[in-house]
């Protein structure tokens, strides 16, 4: 029986492994963390329909609880070598797996907002990231600022670590705009009296129903959208945050005090993706994501035969896109194994 090793137990790795297992292949999934699930477990509700993340987690759990494929947790892959027509995957201290094909599903990392120091993350108490906010939302409806106040004025800052030459990322992470709209609505629902501002460069509502969500945010939730990039943030004596920006539509500079600043952090190719890509000699694109051989016709094929890409290791994707992409990776692996003679 043909053997496939999947690296990474996020939703892409689980989905691809499950599809291949159902096709009748022997699949081993290697995850470096103690548990499966990856970044998805950080979110609370998914746009555009506010679906609780628990439903996605349950779906994933049903897959890996089915025992259709083997899961090795707590183990980090450190080498992928070609052995004749097979691939040898070394992991942990002495684990060696011989595979006919490998799926890289190492995912993304959230941009470290500390690198954008002028926004004051981890310097000013009341500056948090969108991931921190998701975590707060997950833990219930009692939203307070880190200094313990019910926020009356909240600013969402778009494009933190995305479309920003100075932090070294040129690309658009594409999901932060809609995440900001989603979180702004959620905040308005919890705190109907709070003033909520979104500071954006431009709004990229690329998906179906995203635009509707954006209109709803303005019409029903009174969210104020300001076209302007945050220039700098400063902490006042009372721990509120003074933000300075320019409203580029009205042409006026803005200076306002807010109780909470939420930084919409982008998606980056993580350390694991870098390490796996380098040890397997895969091509990277200029944004440090893994490069498929063809952006239209072979999105799951890495630059090395037999090694396939699934999910956000190759570009930022939503949950829905990640799952689609993982299934297509499974199909590509199947095609590859059918066509190879061994």
């Amino acid at each position: 029986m043909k053997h496939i090793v999947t690296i990474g137990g996020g939703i892409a790795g689980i989905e691809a492994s499950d599809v291949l297992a159902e096709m009748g292949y022997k699949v081993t999934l290697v995850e470096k963390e103690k548990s499966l699930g990856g970044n998805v477990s950080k979110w609370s509700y998914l746009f555009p329909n506010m679906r609780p993340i628990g439903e996605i987690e349950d779906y994933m759990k049903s897959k890996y609880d089915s025992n259709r494929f083997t899961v090795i947790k707590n183990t980090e892959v450190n080498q992928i070598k070609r052995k004749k027509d097979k691939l040898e995957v070394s992991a942990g201290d002495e684990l060696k797996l011989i595979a006919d094909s490998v799926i890289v599903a190492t995912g993304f990392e959230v941009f470290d907002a500390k690198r954008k120091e002028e926004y004051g993350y981890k310097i000013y108490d009341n500056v948090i990231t969108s991931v921190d906010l998701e975590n707060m939302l997950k833990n219930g409806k009692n939203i307070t600022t880190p200094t313990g106040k019910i926020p009356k004025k909240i600013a969402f800052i778009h494009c933190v670590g995305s479309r920003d030459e100075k932090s070294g990322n040129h690309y658009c992470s594409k999901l932060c705009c809609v995440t900001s709209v989603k979180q702004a609505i959620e905040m308005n629902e919890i705190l109907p009296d709070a003033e909520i501002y979104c500071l954006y460069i431009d709004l990229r509502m690329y998906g179906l129903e995203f635009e509707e969500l954006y209109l709803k945010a303005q019409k029903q939730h009174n969210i104020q959208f300001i076209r302007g990039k945050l220039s700098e943030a400063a902490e006042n004596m009372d721990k509120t945050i003074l933000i300075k920006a320019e409203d580029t539509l009205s042409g006026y500079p803005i200076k306002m005090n807010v109780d909470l600043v939420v930084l919409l952090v982008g998606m980056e190719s993580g350390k694991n993706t870098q390490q796996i890509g380098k040890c397997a000699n895969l091509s990277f694109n200029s944004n440090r994501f893994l490069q498929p051989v063809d952006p239209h016709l072979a999105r799951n094929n890495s630059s090395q035969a037999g090694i396939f890409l699934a999910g956000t290791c190759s570009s930022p994707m939503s949950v829905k896109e990640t799952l689609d992409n993982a299934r297509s990776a499974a199909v590509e692996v199947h095609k590859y194994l059918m066509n190879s003679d061994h």
Partner: protein
Amino acid sequence: MNEIISQYFTWPFTIGAIYLGIIVIIRFVRWVIGLSKIDKIRILKNVFTIKTWDSIKEAVSEGLLHRKIFKTNSLLGYMHMSLAFGWFLLIIIGHIETIYHEGTMAFPFYKSIFFRYFVHESTGNFIANLFSETMDLLLLFVLSGVFLAYYKRINSRIYGIKRTTKLKSGDKIALSALWLIFPLRLLAESFSAGIHNNGGFLTQLLGNLLYSSFSLEPAVDYMWLAYSMSLGFFFIALPNSRYMHIPTEILLIFLRKYGVNLKKRFNTYSQIQVFSCSRCGICLDSCQLMNAEIKNTQSVYVLKSIRNKSLTDETLFNCLLCGRCQNDCPVGIELNDLRITQRIESTFEYNSSYEYLEHTKAEKADVVYFAGCMTHLTPAIKKSMQYIFNYAGINYWFMDEDKAPCCGRPLMQMGQYDAAQKLIENNRQRIIESGAHTLVASCPICYKVFKEDYSLPHIKIMHHSEYLLDLVYKTKIPYFKPANRIIYHDPCELGRGSNIYEQPRELLGFYTQLIPIQAEKDRSYCCGGSLANIKIQMHEREKIMNSAINEYLKYEPDFLVTSCPLCKKTFAKNRELIVKDIAEIVCESLQNQYTELQKQNEVLLTQS
């Protein structure tokens, strides 16, 4: 034919030498006349002092011995020294030899140059022998330099330099003539020695060898003519070639010692500096823009373009003003200020008026703290400084907490001198009004302009690294030493720009374990973030940053520490090394100590 040659062969040399002499004198006179009145007074005041003697010493050690080039690379130093000092000795000793032989000082100038053509007595006298052997030894010395110079064109790496400058046509003529002078002299003297037995160990040996296979008599006059022509060509080509640096450098040494200095506008002293550039190319290797494949904007090319009047903004503004080249320049040309002068000339028309600047009131305080715009973009630094000020109980005023004009230095770097003055005046008045005795700046860019261009009498201007060290010495803040191994990155404007190397190191000595590295102090790298370059692309900056980071990573430090918010911000892009400001290191130490004390107190309380 031979008779005509023997009669006139000295003419190319004589004409060349006279032409060169006249041109050099005209230029020197023009340059000195063109200096400002105050500079002329400086010259008159200092010319009859010890400074002239110092200048002579420096002219010998730099103009002839090339001591500074020796420091860069000994082979390169030897090459320059053998050519300059060897040739100098050939002229001087040749002249003494002629005086000795003639018994008088009254003989035509060319006679000592072509001595062995005119004097045929075979040697025998001990002193005459000594002269001829010495002259041969010196010739050999110079020739060794010439051969090293040939080889440098093929392989410059063994001379410690990776790159060498591109030549223009005037230089090529002069260079070819220079390369021919000494081999031709060797041949001419050897021919004469073969015929007349008047050579030293080298020329006699070669002469005898040649004479045993050829008849030298018909060719000897042509050989001396060729030697004379190579000298003549060189002298005539010299004023329009880079070799004009030879006389100009001497003038520069004297004027510099007399206290003449660069002004904000281009004047004849700037011109003297421009002409003093030998285009040795050492600055090419110092320049980190090379890491980003920017290869035609280095100082040597700027000076060359100023001379040729072909300077473009593209060249002029593509420079970080990091000062590494200035540090390495063997002639000591003020490359940064010279470039800024050119920027002032280039941007003269579009200075902003800054009429909208308002005068806001100052607060009374002992210490004025000016964070600077870059520190506002790296708030961990200003927060640390505020913590330390409060900890030490300093009565301070955070001058630009809400708003204040820029310090003016970025405009200065751009050549917008008049516009910068408006900002400087606005800030200066408020600083004075505060009644403070000390001004503390967190940003070396601000610090440099406060120090150099603000006139703030009776106010002590300090960078926060100096100030914090002061607080430690005054026991206003305690210190303790955790096991962190760190590298200190010298910011350009603080290190090379303001000569502050030791205070930050001393301060870090109290709080960390400082790893000594190769590229430190005046050899330190630029982070690549410099505001002085408006032509460079972001990805090129990144290459410069990465080359520095990769070097630092070799030492495996826990952190990289700097004392400049711009360096910190630039380095923050790297994903491998944590970067902190020196103020954060101090602040964290105070905070840790504070929590330690609190814990101890709690223990004491529970025990009691």
